[in-house]
């Protein structure tokens, strides 16, 4: 449900909410999430921290609708995920994903990699892609292939790809996990600039406490639960 005040602004409606999310693997032998309650406001930057295997990636995957929970509920702007009639469309329009391993397609050049999420729309997005690549400082490498780029450069291309369909939420799973500290600093700065200028909501999984401190809010997880 939307709650609009007199000026038409949406107030008090979180962009993402979850209730008692549980997820297990190996027929219930491995519990990745044990009842996660989460509430993320519009425009918020939330850092998710916690030891390895505590369920951070699992939570992001559930939020991106890449996976179905065993139980529990998820809402996007008040709309339950299970009520969405087109989950692919939801991912495409509202979610941007950034991974530790970049996941660029080696056969495609930088520009085509950025355009990949826009292929199903059939729209001509090359100008927008070039614009984004300029914002991440990669506009001089349009025709190069991922193998020709450094890790930091690859992640900048992956960020441009995540933004091509103008999502509302950026879900980043250890985006600096494979980068040296200089590249990592650059990528983080870039993410925070883009987030502010585009009004994005961002959830970022990180092991780095310095990075986590820059967030509006920190969520700490352990054994599939949010503990703080």
């Amino acid at each position, binding site marked *: 449900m939307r709650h609009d005040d007199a000026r038409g602004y949406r107030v008090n409606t979180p962009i993402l909410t979850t209730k008692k999310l549980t997820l297990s693997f190996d027929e219930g032998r491995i519990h990745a999430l044990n009842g996660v309650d989460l509430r993320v406001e519009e425009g918020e930057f939330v850092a998710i921290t916690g030891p390895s295997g505590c369920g951070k990636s699992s939570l992001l*995957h559930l939020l991106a609708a*890449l996976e179905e929970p065993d139980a529990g509920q998820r809402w996007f702007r008040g709309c339950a995920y299970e009520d969405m009639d087109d989950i*692919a*469309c939801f991912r495409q329009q509202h979610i941007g*994903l950034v*991974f530790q391993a970049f996941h660029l397609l080696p*056969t495609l050049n930088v520009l085509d990699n950025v355009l990949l999420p826009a292929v*199903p729309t059939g729209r001509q997005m090359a100008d927008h892609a070039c614009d984004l690549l300029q914002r991440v400082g990669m506009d001089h490498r349009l025709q190069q292939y991922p193998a020709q780029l450094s890790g930091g450069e690859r992640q900048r291309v992956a960020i441009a790809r995540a933004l091509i369909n103008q999502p509302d939420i950026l879900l980043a799973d250890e985006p600096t996990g494979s980068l040296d500290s200089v590249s990592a600093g650059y990528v983080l700065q870039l993410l925070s600039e883009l987030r502010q200028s585009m009004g994005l909501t961002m959830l970022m999984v990180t092991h780095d406490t310095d990075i986590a401190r820059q967030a509006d809010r920190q969520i700490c997880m352990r054994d599939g639960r949010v503990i703080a």
Partner: protein
Amino acid sequence: MTLWMLAWHNIRRRPARSALTIAAVAIGIAAVVALTAIAWGFESSWQQANDARATDLIVTRQASQNTMPSPFREADVRPLLMQQAHVQQVAGLLSEMLSVSEDGPPAFVFGWEYGSYLWQHLELVEGRWPASAHEQVVVIGTLAAQTLHKGVGDHVDIEGLTFPVVGIFRSSALVENGALLMTLRQMQQTMDKPGKVNVLNIQLDASASETDEAQIQQHVRQQLHGYHVLTSGELVSRNAVVRIAKAMSQVTTLIAGLVGALMVFNTMLMSVSERRREIGLLLAVGWRKAMVMRLIVSESVGLALTGGALGILAGFVLASVLEMLPLMRGKIDPLFSPWFLLAVLGLSVVLGMAGGLLPALNAARTSPSQALRGE
């Protein structure tokens, strides 16, 4: 950036594997193209010969399904035929595939009733026609003159007898151009089959309609047991060699289609399992399953269509080479119609789709979460 561009990138990504798959499809399609063109060409060259002779109906022995129907006594049949309304002429014909030189390939030797309408469609290019039904001479087609290296004044040996070549003729039918021709009387003597023919050709008068034709067929059928009365088209399509050629081309089409589809299937299955993570990524960035399936099927159709196009080219070459073989010269004329080539491209698309369907379903079942976690 379009789906087709991405599919093309993926095909080129494994050049050796894609090239092998394309080659396998191309070889199959080439065999289909060559054999089918030859089977149809074979049929059409016989049809041409009958059309050129202006023959309306043909009488042969029932059992015979050979290229050359088995001989029968002309006197048993001719009187009945002559009684039928609209029958203008009945002309006997005895023919055989014979070896006419020591080293050369076998050739058709025709014996045609002297003075009958059969001779009228031939054009004499050199020399003269036989002077009477009894003259022991042959005239030969232009193509036979080339393949046998014979001209007017030379001699050919047929079944132990020597025949001077007195003339060279040209026909609109390829089969006849490659043949040797003598009078029916001479042929009967040479083959030791006096009074026998293997085909009686019937020419109807100009006023005969198709119903008349059918009526004659019915009359003769009722009164003559053990014989066929066929239109020339029916004769050709009943011809055993034409039927074998067609059956072979159909079986080849089936085998080539299956093998091609299996090759494409194998390639796409490997490709999908190698690219599991990429497929997971496509799903994660908002591609629908149907779109992923279209990508995989586009790739398999791209492979098959490239193979099909190359196969058509190779099939042309193959058919031309086969046509030029001494054994085949003058007997077939491969037929390539645009519709046939379109059908072959259609076949390639179908085998590409068939080969890509299961891998595409497999790809669509990818869990993006699992795929993106994988190393």
